[in-house]
C-alpha cells in the first residue's frame, strides 16, 4: 500500500467529549498501515482537538494506562490495531472505560479500581528484610504455578470494565483485585495469606462472581481471573472447615 493511497483513505472516528453529560464528536482520520487505536486518538489530539483528554504512557502494552472502550468493547488501545476493530466501513467509536467515574473525554478516574485492590489486600506482606537470604521458591510447586499464571497483570482495568457484576454491585471487588489476591494466597513468601483470603472472601468478594468469564474474554494479556476467583471460592470454603491456610 502506498502512503499516498493511505492518506486518501479516512477513518470515521466518533469520540466521546465531555464527562457524564456530553456527546460524540466525529473526526476524519487518515488511515495508515499498522495503525493502532491509540495512534488514532493521538492524531486527533495533535491535529484536530488539542483539548482532548486521554491517558497513555508506554505505548507498548506494559503500563496499562491506555484502556478505552472501542466499538463497544474495552481494549488496550496501544496494542489494538485499527484493522482488527474497524470493519469494512472504517468506523470507530471510542468511549471511556465502563464502570469507572469519568473525568473528561476518554480519561476515567481509577481511584475506585485501586481502592478495591487495597480492600482485597492485594499487596505483599513481607516476612524478611534485605539482610535475610533470598527465599527459596520452587517454580515447580503447584502454588507457585498458580501464582505465576496470574502475575502478569498490567492493571489496565479492562476486565473491571468488562465485568457486569462490577457494573451492578458497587461493592464488588472485581476481577483484577481478586486475581491479585489469588496470586498472593499462593505466594508462600507472603506473611498474611490468610488475611488476603479473608479480605477476598468478605462481602463483595469472590463469592459475588458469576463465573461468566467476560474478564477472561477481554484481558489483553490473556490472564484468567475467573479461574483465580474460583480458586479463592474453593479456598475460602476449605477455610470454613478449618483446612485453609497457615
Amino acid at each position, binding site marked *: 500500500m502506498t502512503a499516498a493511497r493511505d492518506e486518501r483513505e479516512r477513518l470515521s472516528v466518533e469520540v466521546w467529549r465531555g464527562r457524564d453529560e456530553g456527546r460524540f464528536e466525529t473526526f476524519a482520520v487518515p488511515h495508515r498501515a499498522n495503525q493502532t487505536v491509540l495512534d488514532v486518538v493521538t492524531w486527533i489530539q495533535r491535529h484536530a482537538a488539542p483539548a482532548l483528554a486521554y491517558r497513555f504512557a508506554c505505548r507498548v502494552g506494559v503500563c496499562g494506562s491506555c484502556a478505552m472502550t472501542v466499538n463497544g468493547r474495552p481494549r488496550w488501545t496501544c496494542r489494538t490495531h485499527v484493522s482488527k476493530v474497524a470493519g469494512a466501513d472504517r468506523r470507530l467509536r471510542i468511549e471511556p472505560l465502563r464502570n469507572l467515574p469519568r473525568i473528561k473525554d476518554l480519561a476515567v478516574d481509577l481511584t475506585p479500581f485501586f481502592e478495591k485492590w487495597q480492600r482485597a489486600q492485594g499487596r505483599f506482606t513481607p516476612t524478611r528484610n534485605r539482610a535475610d537470604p533470598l527465599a527459596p521458591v520452587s517454580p515447580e510447586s503447584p502454588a507457585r504455578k498458580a501464582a505465576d499464571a496470574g502475575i502478569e497483570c498490567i492493571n489496565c482495568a479492562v476486565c473491571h470494565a468488562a465485568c457486569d*457484576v462490577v457494573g*451492578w*454491585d458497587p*461493592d464488588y471487588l472485581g476481577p483484577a483485585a481478586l486475581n491479585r489476591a489469588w496470586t498472593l494466597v499462593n505466594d508462600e513468601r507472603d506473611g498474611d495469606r490468610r488475611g488476603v483470603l479473608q479480605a477476598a*472472601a*468478605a*462481602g463483595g*468478594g469472590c*463469592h*459475588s462472581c458469576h463465573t461468566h468469564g467476560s474478564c477472561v474474554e477481554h484481558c489483553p494479556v490473556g490472564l484468567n481471573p475467573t479461574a483465580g476467583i474460583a480458586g479463592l*471460592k474453593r479456598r*475460602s*470454603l476449605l*477455610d*470454613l472447615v478449618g483446612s485453609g491456610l497457615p
Partner: protein
Amino acid sequence: MSPARLYLLQRATALILAPLVLVHLGLILIAVEGGLTAAEILGRTRGSVGWAAFYGLFVLAAAIHAPIGLRNVIHEHTSWRGRSLGFATIALGLLLAGLGARAVIAVVAVP
C-alpha cells in the same frame, strides 16, 4: 453470616434440590398419566415416613436456597443493603419453610 457460608449453603442446597426436583416432576407426570385421583394419591402419602422425609427435605432446601439467591439479586440490582436486607432474607426463608411445611403436613398427616 459470612459470604462464604451463604455461598456454601446455596450450593449445597442446589445439589440437594436438583435430584429432588427431577423426582418431583417425574412423580407429577406419572400421577397425571396414570390417572391417579387425589384420594388415591393421599392414600399413598398419608402416614408415609418416606414421603414426609422426601418433601420435608425438599421444603427445607428450597427455603434456604431461594432467599439467598433472591438476596444476591437484590444486592446486585438495587441499593438495598445491611441488616434490613438480612432480616428480610430470613423472613422469606421462614415464610417458605412455614408454607412448605403446611403443604407437606397436609399430604402426609393421617387425619
